[in-house]
């Protein structure tokens, strides 16, 4: 009796466990199988899926107020600017406006609209739309805050006919050559929006660019649909999806799993890992992003009131330049970036040929001997018992705090090199690690000696170089400011900055910007370590991504639409990838599992029915 109960119990349990297991398996298989098959056939749509870390930073897609880079990237795909950045060399190029000219005094600008330009709803894009938008921004405090450099000098905007716009300024402005990639809105729609500053981004609104907005789930995904009425060459696929990922690691995994087709902002390790994954290709290209060391060059107000607690010796360019002499940028790039970068010079990256300054023979030589000579010549000859030089004016040893971001691993590696290198100069560095937020707050308050910084140089030098003017470097009040990089002030530099902002001629402006870089390079308020490469992964099913510049640049984070708009599936016009074989396999697996579970259920029910007989 005992034995037979035990055997029966064991037998019953095994059956029941099998039935439950089969039930779970089929649930999983069914849940897993159907969407796989659905995603693959999906009406034959061609869909490019882009993974984004940072899509959750914003909850609106207002084309007139894009504070975030990714926000701007998406809006650039929907709205053609009046003038855009030329794909060849970032020079201003026709957008909705096909040509433009300025008066000899640089105060009157006339723009001629492309008669072919039309909104996605078929209505023509006219100069009246541009006048409406410029007037709207100028009269709206919130929107004007994002475009001060563009709208502040404007005194009047006229549209004498549908294809001509005349803008008058109170002072000449080089920005009018590209109007900051400015987007114009359709008057026939936006004139009815009561509070344009609160516009969230609504699907179906007419756009002027290669895409329209199809779906927007804030913090989750953005779906753009190809604009079939695009007046230039329409894109070669149907939808462009931006999918949010909380972390870069999650996005890399999604790329490996084939859920996304494109991913940018990779670090070298991630790029290497993805490169080893079958079917994934990597774009390693020069970018406009740089990392640098910032010096506290003597934070103080315009009236001379001291700000923060910077070391007085760093006010001396000789000390800063001596440190520059021991930084081996090639070695940093090789060891830390795995070769993915080029040595830094000024704020302007080499991908901007019209503005980039090549130091040539003036390049700072990597030489501790040259650095020591600079310090000796400048009077830093005394040393304390630890071999650290003494500042002859403040009598303090040249011992500097070096703030670095604890959440940026590359900086910690650089710190190790720097501490060793500057020791050869008789200078001591004391590294202090902090999270970005408190570190930035210290930086704004002038409570640092040396710190790290990063920058994405914009195609227009005007706004970037404002950060190095005396107006910003010497704030009016003794309060923290995030509008300066090094609390630097140089009158020669300021004179050139005023000239370049006002210069309407692109070539002349380029020369002035190069002269400014030379001053900065000599005075060293900052040392640009490198221009790192953009590391981007894309599915081998896609090709033709438009880089900026076209000779080899980044695909993502452009201030234009070339990157995604020029992409197409390998081989032309076949539908969205995915092999039907695996789809069929999943469906077959689900079917088999279904048979198993139904069998299990039948068996189980039968057992229940006959339990009395067996008792």
């Amino acid at each position, binding site marked *: 009796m005992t034995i037979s109960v035990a055997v029966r119990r064991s037998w019953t349990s095994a059956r029941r466990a099998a039935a439950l297991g089969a039930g779970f398996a089929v649930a999983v298989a069914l849940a897993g199988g159907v969407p796989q098959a659905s995603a693959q056939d999906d009406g034959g749509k061609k869909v490019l899926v882009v993974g984004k870390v940072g899509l959750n930073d914003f909850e609106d897609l207002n084309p007139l107020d894009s504070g975030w880079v990714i926000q701007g990237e998406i809006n650039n795909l929907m709205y053609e600017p009046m003038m855009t950045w030329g794909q060849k060399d970032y020079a201003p190029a026709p957008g909705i406006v096909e040509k433009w000219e300025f008066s000899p005094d640089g105060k009157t600008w006339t723009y001629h609209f492309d008669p072919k330009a039309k909104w996605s709803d078929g209505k023509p894009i006219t100069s009246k739309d541009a006048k409406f938008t410029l007037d709207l921004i100028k009269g709206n405090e919130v929107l004007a805050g994002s475009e001060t450099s563009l709208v502040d000098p404007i005194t009047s905007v006229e549209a004498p006919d549908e294809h001509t716009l005349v803008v008058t300024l109170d002072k000449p402005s080089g920005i009018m050559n590209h109007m900051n990639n400015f987007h114009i809105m359709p008057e026939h729609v936006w004139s009815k929006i009561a509070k344009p500053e609160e516009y969230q981004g609504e699907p179906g609104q007419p756009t002027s660019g290669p895409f329209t907005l199809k779906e927007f789930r804030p913090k989750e995904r953005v779906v753009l649909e190809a604009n079939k009425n695009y007046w230039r060459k329409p894109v070669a696929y149907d939808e462009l999806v931006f999918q949010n990922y909380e972390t870069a690691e999650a996005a890399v995994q*999604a790329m490996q799993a084939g859920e996304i087709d494109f991913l940018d902002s990779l670090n070298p390790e991630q790029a290497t890992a993805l490169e080893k994954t079958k079917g994934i290709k990597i774009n390693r290209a020069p970018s406009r992003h740089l990392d640098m060391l910032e010096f506290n060059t003597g934070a103080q107000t315009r009236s001379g009131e001291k700000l923060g607690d910077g070391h007085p010796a760093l006010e001396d360019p000789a000390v800063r330049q001596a440190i520059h002499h021991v930084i081996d940028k090639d070695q940093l790039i090789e060891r830390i970036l795995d070769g993915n970068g080029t040595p830094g010079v000024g704020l302007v990256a080499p991908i901007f040929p019209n503005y980039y300054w090549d130091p040539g023979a003036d390049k700072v030589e990597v030489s501790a001997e040259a650095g020591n000579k600079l310090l000796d010549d400048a009077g830093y000859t005394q040393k304390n018992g630890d071999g650290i030089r003494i500042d002859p004016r403040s009598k303090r040893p040249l011992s500097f705090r070096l703030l670095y971001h604890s959440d940026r691993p590359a900086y910690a590696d650089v710190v190790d090199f720097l501490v060793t290198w500057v020791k050869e100069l008789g200078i001591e560095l004391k590294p202090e690690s902090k999270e970005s937020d408190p570190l930035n707050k210290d930086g704004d308050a002038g409570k640092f000696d040396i710190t790290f910084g990063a920058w994405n140089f914009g195609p227009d030098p005007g706004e970037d170089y404002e950060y190095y003017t005396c107006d910003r470097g010497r704030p009016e009040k003794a309060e923290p400011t995030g509008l300066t990089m090094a609390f630097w002030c140089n009158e020669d530099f300021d004179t050139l900055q005023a000239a370049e902002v006002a210069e309407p001629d692109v070539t002349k402006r380029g020369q002035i910007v190069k002269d400014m870089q030379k001053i900065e390079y000599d005075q060293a308020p900052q040392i640009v370590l490198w221009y790192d490469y953009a590391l981007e992964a894309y599915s081998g099913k896609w090709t033709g991504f438009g880089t900026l510049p076209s000779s080899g640049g980044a695909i993502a984070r452009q201030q234009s639409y070339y990157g995604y708009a020029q992409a197409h599936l390998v081989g032309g016009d076949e539908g969205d990838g995915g092999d039907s074989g695996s789809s069929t396999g999943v469906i077959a697996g689900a079917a088999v599992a279904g048979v198993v579970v139904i069998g299990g259920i039948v068996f189980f029910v039968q057992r229940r029915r006959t339990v009395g007989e067996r008792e």
Partner: protein
Amino acid sequence: MADISRTGVAEPSAAPGGTPQSDPAQAAVLRRAYRGEFLRFVAVKFSGALVSLVMVVLTSFFIFRVLAGDPVDAVVGDTPATPEQVAAIRERLGLDEPMGVQFWEYLRSLFTMDWGTSYVSDKKVTTLLWERLPATVLLTATAMILAAAFGTWVGARSGWRRGSTGEKVQVGVSLTLWSTPTFWLGMIAIVAFSVKLGWFPVNGMHSTRGVGDGFWDEFFDVAHHLVLPALTMAAVLYAQYVLIMRTSILEERGNDYLTVARAKGLRDDHVRRLHAVPNALLPTITLAAAEFGTIFNGSVLTETVFSWPGLGLTFYQAIKIPDIPLLQLLFVFFAGTTVLVNFLAEIFYRFLDPRVRRSA
């Protein structure tokens, strides 16, 4: 069970003058006594819940104002702002007001039920909450049902066969899962089942490439995405049910009524399922009731690892800014629903288990 009938303030057999069933007046007295005692019980529990809620409401104002980070940075974006722009944003968000004024505004918002607008969008935070709540309920409810059902079943079998290999394995597995950090388990699950095997999506709630427009397309798509996060969350919760049910069954195993049931010739399996398990279920129900209170809270870790667009992920995203109005509402909602559900569970439990009622 026999002990229970001899305890309690209103034990019928303790009353003089015969059995209560035979005396309607006595029965009415007893009913009144029960009712009075029940109302006292509810009042005490309700006051406790109310005090907790008041503490939650007060805490939620202060706790998020000591967080690092400046909400203005999130509003400004990647573009640095001028001091004038920063000042204007601070004024718009009400951050330029003294703390006392902000606190007063906060208290006022409690009474008007206007919790304010998110710093990074122009949406009411209550709208954001209702938008994200269904995803959280779907995930946590699925995980809890899976964990409770499977954990109870496994726990009962393990306790019934004490000393068997199966029991040892189950206890070991349960303890291991209980000790495993959820985020780690989630990441391992993603690597194994999504990246390597390709069975499930890496994260999210919807396919990146979209599915058809039909209800069932959407249903299966969400179900497919639900499997990994729900199993990850359930795996950790499951261990509690296994261990509690196992302990409970162990206590029941030696009782006389089970020997009687066996003596009547019932199969061992029936004795366990129909006699032992129902009596051993009460601790499990207590646990389930307590966890039900957290069903609206989601799981910050699980939702973050799997980018599941629920309240937990919303909380994580808001805390990085920090989006104070949204955090305040979520905190009060999380804590408030937990307090409320626990309060209801205590009352429910009183009806379910006479021992609680009579020992109160």
